[in-house]
């Protein structure tokens, strides 16, 4: 039986889980928002990583067939998306129960309660099909994929359509219901759920129009058509492979917990590691020549120096204030009423960088409004803001000893293109053009990856650097 290793990184904003195999390859990733209940967040991230691992094992198992049949790839991708929707649906029902319960406790008056329940049902009816459509047709795009964010956005939209007097009671019902609904771990039966997803997918393809409508792009159409013609055949062929991975017994041989909430994880003490070591080890695993690691997470920025073994030699972290970290960006996004994922792309449009302070999140918000009133363009303000974040990180890097070749950037903020732009610019300006800058698509998972790698080694040192030397020899 194959052995797998789990790393859980319980960050201040998001919780990540990574599963690796015995070759240190990532086979499963899971991510969720960290909520008041840390252990639920860890469980959800882990469950998601295991589902994700089943899908990647499926892909691996039929790698050859996929090469010859591009439609298989499309089917698996679609199935993964619908599978997510099936989970989402269960959670949504759970939230529905909670909303009704809150409504009952909040309104003793039967008449009033009835009216509120009526609104709740109408709201749910309005957004449920929209969300379903988003999942089925991959319309969620770059938006945040967490349950809370998706539902809250739609709920808000619907409440705003109603008259003003309803806003407060409906939002109070929401506030009181979302946390209990979210803080409960829903256990899914993978096989049952994947079969449901397959049925749903079948339904989707059966009902696809035969000819393309004017709205759909040619590309989209081509992909759809690839599968549409031979859907039943693809589905039948893949079913046995899907059942195989659904039945696969998942053996997690060891695990490591890291991140801010690590002390609260129900893990044995020797399975808990500092996130500084995990980020460094994860970065080293992906880029073994890494000497300096910058990690910008939700509430802290770490500048870490590592040696050839991936072991930390020194580190510096922000103290007392978390301005310039992920949460800072979240706050700014809220102030601008846009999603956090839109910040970076918008800042990329900047023609100049407006000078803005990065020492205080709250003040930066006020400054932003002031600058907007003065007629500065949003893009330019955001450009300045992203630059300011990096300036702050640069001072931390300087404190830790500077940048040495190679330099790896990790953490959730590493997904932001404007952050990458200014970081690259400032690292080159300060430490020379020859510095190799590494940013991996899995950068947000680096801490969890490092954790999983520690779990696999269980401190019986088997370092990637050593392996590399052996390979070279």
């Amino acid at each position: 039986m194959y052995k797998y290793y789990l790393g859980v990184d319980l960050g201040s904003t998001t919780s990540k889980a990574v599963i690796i195999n015995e070759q240190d390859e990532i086979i499963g990733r899971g991510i969720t928002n960290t909520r008041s209940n840390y252990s639920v967040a860890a469980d959800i991230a882990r469950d998601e990583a295991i589902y994700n691992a089943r899908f990647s094992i499926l892909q691996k198992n039929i790698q050859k067939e996929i090469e010859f049949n591009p439609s298989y790839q499309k089917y698996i991708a679609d199935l993964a998306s619908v599978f997510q929707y099936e989970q989402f649906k269960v959670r949504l029902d759970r939230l529905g129960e909670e909303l009704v319960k809150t409504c009952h406790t909040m309104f003793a008056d039967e008449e009033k309660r009835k009216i509120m329940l009526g609104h709740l049902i109408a709201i749910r009816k309005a957004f449920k099909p929209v969300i379903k459509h988003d999942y089925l047709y991959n319309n969620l795009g770059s938006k945040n994929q967490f349950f809370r964010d998706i539902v809250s956005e739609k709920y808000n939209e619907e409440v705003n359509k109603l008259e003003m007097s309803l806003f407060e009671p409906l939002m109070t019902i929401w506030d009181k219901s979302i946390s209990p609904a979210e803080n409960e771990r829903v256990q899914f039966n993978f096989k049952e759920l994947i079969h449901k997803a397959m049925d749903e997918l079948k339904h989707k393809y059966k009902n696809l129009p035969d000819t393309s409508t004017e709205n759909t792009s040619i590309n989209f159409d081509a992909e759809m058509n690839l599968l549409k013609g031979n859907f039943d055949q693809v589905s039948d062929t893949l079913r046995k492979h899907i059942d195989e991975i659904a039945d696969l017994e998942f053996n997690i041989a060891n695990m490591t917990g890291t991140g801010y909430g690590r002390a609260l994880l129900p893990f044995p003490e020797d399975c808990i590691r500092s996130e500084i070591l995990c980020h460094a080890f994860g970065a080293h695993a992906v880029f073994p020549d890494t000497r300096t690691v910058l990690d910008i997470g939700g509430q802290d920025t770490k500048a870490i120096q590592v040696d050839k073994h991936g072991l930390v030699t020194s580190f510096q972290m922000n103290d007392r204030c978390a301005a310039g970290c992920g949460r800072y960006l979240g706050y700014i996004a809220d102030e601008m009423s846009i999603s956090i994922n839109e910040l970076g792309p918008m800042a990329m449009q900047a023609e100049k960088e407006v000078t803005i302070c990065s020492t205080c999140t709250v003040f930066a918000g006020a400054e932003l409004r002031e600058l907007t009133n003065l007629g500065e363009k949003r893009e330019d303000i955001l450009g300045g803001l992203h630059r300011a974040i990096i300036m702050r990180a640069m001072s931390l890097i300087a404190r830790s000893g500077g940048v040495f070749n190679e330099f790896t950037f990790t953490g959730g903020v590493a997904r932001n293109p404007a952050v990458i732009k200014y970081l690259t610019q400032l690292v080159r300006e300060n430490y020379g053009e020859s510095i190799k800058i590494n940013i991996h698509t899995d950068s947000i998972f680096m801490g969890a990856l490092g954790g999983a790698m520690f779990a696999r080694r269980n401190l019986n040192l088997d370092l990637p650097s050593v392996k590399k030397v052996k390979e070279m020899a």
Partner: protein
Amino acid sequence: MSSHKEAIKENSMIIQKEMLAKQFKDLSMAKELGKKVVYTFVPGNLTELILSFDMLPVYPEINALQSGMRKKSAEYIRDAEKIGFSEDVCTYVKCDIGMMLNGNIGPTGEKIPPPDLLLLSYTGCFTFLKWFENLERLYPGVPVAMLHTPYQEDGVMTEDQINYMVKQMKEEVIPKMEMVSGQKYDHARLSKMMENSAKAEDLLVKILESAKLVPSPIDAYFAGVYYIGPIFTAFRGTQEAVDYYTELWNEVQQRIELGLGPVTPEGEIKEEKFRLVVEGPPNWTNFREFWKIFYDMGAVIVASSYTKVGGVYDLGFRHDPKEPLESLSKYCMGVYTNMNLPQRVEMLENYVKEYKADGFLINSIKSCNSFSAGQLMIMREIEQRASVPVGFIESDLVDPRYFSYSNIKNRLESYFQMLEQRKIILKQEATTI
């Protein structure tokens, strides 16, 4: 403190407690005893000279740290800020001023008398100048004696500098002391006291250097601050100090013979897992909590710069009965914070090597420029020269608002895990070669 177990006390600790009790009792009765009171600072202090005039010294920064340990500092700092001291001002200053505003009650609950003389003997910390300017206003009309101590910019002490210091003592300090105390300067008495100083200094060096043993019988930082207490303050040059250090040295020797680890309030350290050199003062408001983090990790501090602020005796300096004023001059110029940065780096580098330390850690103090300036450079130099992992944490002297337990614990945990990994790697490399 009820949740804490009763701290273990050794005989030397009881002796020290009695010494302090007597000191503050005498201070509270200064008027009745007909004694004059001199406020002065720990680094580069002229304790023997003060005592030779039968005057009683008071050390404001010691009072501040005592207030911090007794959980009084938050209130005192708040009161100093109320009358206009900025958040950025040294918290020792604010705590001291706040204590004075609240009746100047010392650590034993007894009142500390107002100063009859303000003796500013060390000027390497510029805040000291401003501190005494403030005290001068709080106690209008009090005479001030200032001794300018040249900074060791070039890392050497010249004859000129020593002559300059002696001249100031003869022309400024001693005349003021004679005036305040009504006694004549007694060279022979001062010289005699210096014999005691040197004896106690010899013993202190032996005690601190016992940490070169692996495992170490003492903690040279957390326990070290108690060890330096008498000699850095009112007791240098006295027979009591010699007796105290004799007793302490006996205890340390016993610990060595029995193979015992350092004494901590939580109990003896059974297994020494990490040996560290620490730079910077400790945090006083959460001293025991701070120490316990190290205790829990089995970390022993084998050497520290803080225990050298009142004299770097392990580098060879001793007070000399043959030339008391000259040796006081050399003493003032030689204290740790008056050394230039290359000297400090060299000293710390040697500590890491001679004390076989696994790592070097800096506790950077938010409100202390004197210590913090140059710390990042020191850290990098030590990392390169001594090839040990370095760590950096931040807290404050006596302002509890700047002690974030979870932040400090998080950083220290990471640091200790770093050290642990390194040990495994080094062991592995040693066995493969």
